[in-house]
């Protein structure tokens, strides 16, 4: 590099200043949620906000976990997200395999339809889906939410898995076919075992999307029996005024599973983004 000394110094200073700003911007709101969760109500609603809790307390967590509906909402979210993830991983793998590997009429149209469906925003679909789910008698049930969530997790999983399957050498399938395996056996015994890491990442993404979903949850569900944590938290927010401590504690609890996924899969997340939307 032919760079002058001053350029280098300017560059270094700019980098550190930029980094400081980026870190502050990203972390300050998260920090504020977390400290609020550990404050007493008196401190939260005091005249001067404190940077560090004066009397750190677990009261808000205790309230959220043992004296509110919140655990039920978490259970509902977890239940819906797990079922949705399992179904869409299976359907996605089945659909991705022929698109990645076989030749058939309508192949490119199918691939296109999957990307289209993946890009279709839920906010375009929620009123018509409401009509369908109403007709199925599934309004205000977890089953209704599962049905609704499949509309975005199935195209998502299929699209991501097409990318993963294409990275597996074709010779492996061909060898298995020569050995007398049928296509389904090739998928389950050859492709899927190799694609397990990819499948796991796709499943984590699908789980996260279902866990975070809000619009369908607020449109299709209104009773506490089926409410997910996102809609549960908003109803807690609207129901009471002095509830921020408990809300922030609940938020911290709700972020934890996603954070664990994020830390575990961090290496794959950028790759996943790249495979899903900017391959190559």
């Amino acid at each position, binding site marked *: 590099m032919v*760079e002058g000394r001053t350029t280098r110094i300017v*560059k270094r200073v700019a*980098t550190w200043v*930029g*980094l400081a700003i*980026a*870190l502050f911007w*990203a*972390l300050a*709101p*998260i920090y*504020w*949620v977390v400290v609020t969760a550990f404050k007493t109500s008196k401190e939260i609603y005091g005249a*001067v*906000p404190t940077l560090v809790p004066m009397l750190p307390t677990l009261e808000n967590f205790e309230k959220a976990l043992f004296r509110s509906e919140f655990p039920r909402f978490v259970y509902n979210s977890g239940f819906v997200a797990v079922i949705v993830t399992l179904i869409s991983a299976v*359907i*996605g793998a*089945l*659909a991705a395999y*022929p*698109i990645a590997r*076989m*030749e*058939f009429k309508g192949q*490119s149209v199918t*691939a296109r339809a999957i*990307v*289209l*469906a993946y*890009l*279709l925003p839920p*906010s*375009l679909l*929620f*009123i*018509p*889906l*409401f*009509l*369908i789910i109403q007709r199925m008698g599934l309004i205000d049930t977890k089953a209704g939410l599962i*049905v*609704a969530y499949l*509309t975005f997790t199935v195209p998502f999983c299929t699209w991501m898995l*097409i990318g993963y399957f294409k990275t597996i050498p074709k010779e492996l399938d*061909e060898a298995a076919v020569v050995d007398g395996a049928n*296509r389904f056996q090739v*998928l389950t015994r050859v492709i899927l075992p190799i694609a397990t890491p990819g499948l796991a990442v796709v499943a984590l993404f699908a789980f996260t999307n279902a866990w975070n979903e809000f*619009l369908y949850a*607020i449109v299709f569900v209104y009773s506490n029996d089926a409410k997910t944590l996102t809609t549960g938290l*908003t109803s807690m*927010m609207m129901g009471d005024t002095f509830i921020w401590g408990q809300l922030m504690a609940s*938020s911290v609890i*709700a*972020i934890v599973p*996603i954070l664990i996924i*994020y830390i575990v899969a961090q290496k794959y997340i*950028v790759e996943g*983004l*790249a495979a899903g939307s*900017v391959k190559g």
Partner: protein
Amino acid sequence: MAADPAALDARLPPGFRSPPPPVRPQRRSTPAGLTPYLFLIPAFLIFGGLIVYPLIDGIATAFTDRVIARGGQFIGVQNFLTLLGDEIFLRAAWNSLGLTLWVVAIKAVLGMIFALVLAQPLPFRGIFRALVFLPWAVPGLIAGLAWKWIYDEQVGVLTYLTLALGITDMPTYWLSDPKVGLISVGVAMVWHGLPFYTMMFLAALTSIPSELTEAAAIDGAGPIRRFFSVTLPQMRNVIAITVMLSTIWTFNSFHMVYVLTQGGPANRTQILPTLAFEYGIVRSQLGLGAAVLVSVIPIFLVLIFILTQRMLKKETN
């Protein structure tokens, strides 16, 4: 070693050579009859029953006076005429457009700056990157709650800070002031959506061969010149895809508006998705709500078609 057939063949006169090995057809895949369709049945069912059919049904509903409790009558384009004369709809359309434009623009510029910073050689770079990406891991709804708490008009930290630092001498009503509300919503959207840009741009930046920028440097181009004439053109595709994806998502950030302002005060921060919810579900006028959604479908179809094309092209490369 005498078993090498190619070597053996070469020594034989042409007529006695073994036939050439069959040329492998240069197909991407093997023909498979009905099998692929069997694999695709479940996906087709979901696609047809839960996406295509509802979409058609929704478009049809937009031409009826359907309410939640009962089926509706066909009323032609009446719903659309109602919307065209509806000040709230026009404002929501305007809000959606303006908000999407400036939020996407700010995310693109800041995302690029952050990506450039994180691409520099730094100690603990991996940790710094993970921390800057962290808002991405926060569920959107909880991001909304966090900002609702920051913006709180009685005891919120932002009001306190702006007063204490003397930036304003009156408390600002971040969410209930009609002039400020939409900006506050947009800032929260920028916060939550920015890491996606930073990640995509960073991945693209690090994949640019360093020979390119080095060659430009040797030719005497300064860092700014290098960025605009070498780095940026190399990232064109990634930028286009990122911006288009994010435009779709930003336009549809129902949750942010719902949590922060619920479209208020007096519908000043209403965007089209929240208005469709308000009309279709809250006021149970499904026909009118569907008409709000149908009015944005054309814009989206164009965007989604372009994006699909690009993503498939990338995929086959």
